[in-house]
């Protein structure tokens, strides 16, 4: 049972992770580990490492950009920030997510569910 649940969750997360990254960055710039910790804590990504290929792809697509800033420890860190295009995509996703969540909810018949 648990395995199946995990499989369903993994499939859904795969589709939304990119937008979760955008959502997280929309509240402020973050460096890699910071972002990884947040997403792992929320259980949105299984491995922290797989975040970096995603970030590289998002950067190539112009959704995020990177800057080197000095962090608290005096070491230069690579900070990721959301671009205007990223904001636009995030808004699109919000609209789609609300719509789909409503539709899924409707067909599943609320929290209790009608058919088992």
């Amino acid at each position, binding site marked *: 049972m648990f395995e199946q649940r995990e499989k369903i969750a993994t499939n859904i997360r795969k589709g939304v992770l990119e937008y979760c990254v955008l959502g997280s960055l929309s509240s402020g710039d973050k460096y*890699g580990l910071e972002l*990884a910790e947040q997403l*792992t804590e929320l259980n949105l990504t299984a*491995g922290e*490492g797989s975040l970096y*290929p995603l970030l590289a792809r998002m950067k190539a*697509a112009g959704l995020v950009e990177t800057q080197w800033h000095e962090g608290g420890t005096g*070491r230069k860190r*690579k900070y990721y920030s959301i671009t205007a295009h990223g904001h636009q995509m995030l808004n699109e996703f919000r609209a789609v997510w609300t719509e789909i969540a409503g539709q899924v909810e409707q067909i599943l018949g609320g929290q209790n569910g009608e058919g088992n």
Partner: protein
Amino acid sequence: MAKVIETPSVEEYLRELNHLLRHVPVQLRHELVADIAEHIDEGREQGRSDREIVTALGNAESVAAPVLEEVLLRGAAPTMKRNRRVLGIVAIVTGLFAAIVSRSSDSTVINMTFGPTEMQGASINYGYSDIFAASQLLIFISLGLMVAASAVMRPRIARSYSVAAAVVMTVVVIICGTGLGMFFVPSMVAAWLLAGVNNLKMGADQRDRRSRTVRIVGGIALLLPSSLAVAGILSGSVLGVGPYIFVALGLACSVGYLKSFRFAQWLACITGGLLMVMAIIDQGMLMAAFWLGGIMYFFFGLYGLLWFSDRRAVSTTVLQ
């Protein structure tokens, strides 16, 4: 035997990741490995143990997997597929052409000592036994097929294979020398173009840069034969309208090519093809010059048709 799962050390982890990403464009590969290395440094500073860090990263395969998938997808993209197919066909046609021409070219065959010299005759076999003639033709054709094969191979195998095939063709051209080797030059160029198309490590930026270089070099190179024709006209050593037509053609090809006009690429391709055919039919004094000039026109034209348009296709997919 029980399988022992051990957490790799940080160094092992990075080395493994770097190795897994060996088919990925160099810049992306370095960036990813550097990102992960920084992640590890950052984690260490925050007091995490190496073991914790590596475990949290997830295994190196799962980190590399999406990148590799993307690179393979790009290799399977419609333009890439089309380019491989076109080059495969070009390789077969040029290979076949080379095989037939070299089989029927009496003097060069004799020069290569591929048969008894006293058995010269009017027939295409020059009196050799049919089996000898057929096997010779087969050997020549097999070179073309060898080059073309990489067009239908799986991308990762195709890369090393096509480079090897191109090297073999180059050796064939060098060994056969100026006589017979000349006819295998188109096959050789096609082989190197296939080696290029199968190179998935080449990123879009790098391809753009290369296209720009080829465009400039090609534009200048396409002008050279017509400058020779101009010299001929001025010195009075060539007569008739032919040279004038060729000068105009060369000029149109060259300027159009530099401006990346589609028609100029087609024009160069067709002019090249015609020059090559002319060289074979005419077998005149300047046969080698026409033949090699034709090869140049044809392949610069082909390169433009395959790659210059690809740039536009890539930029539109990014915009979508």
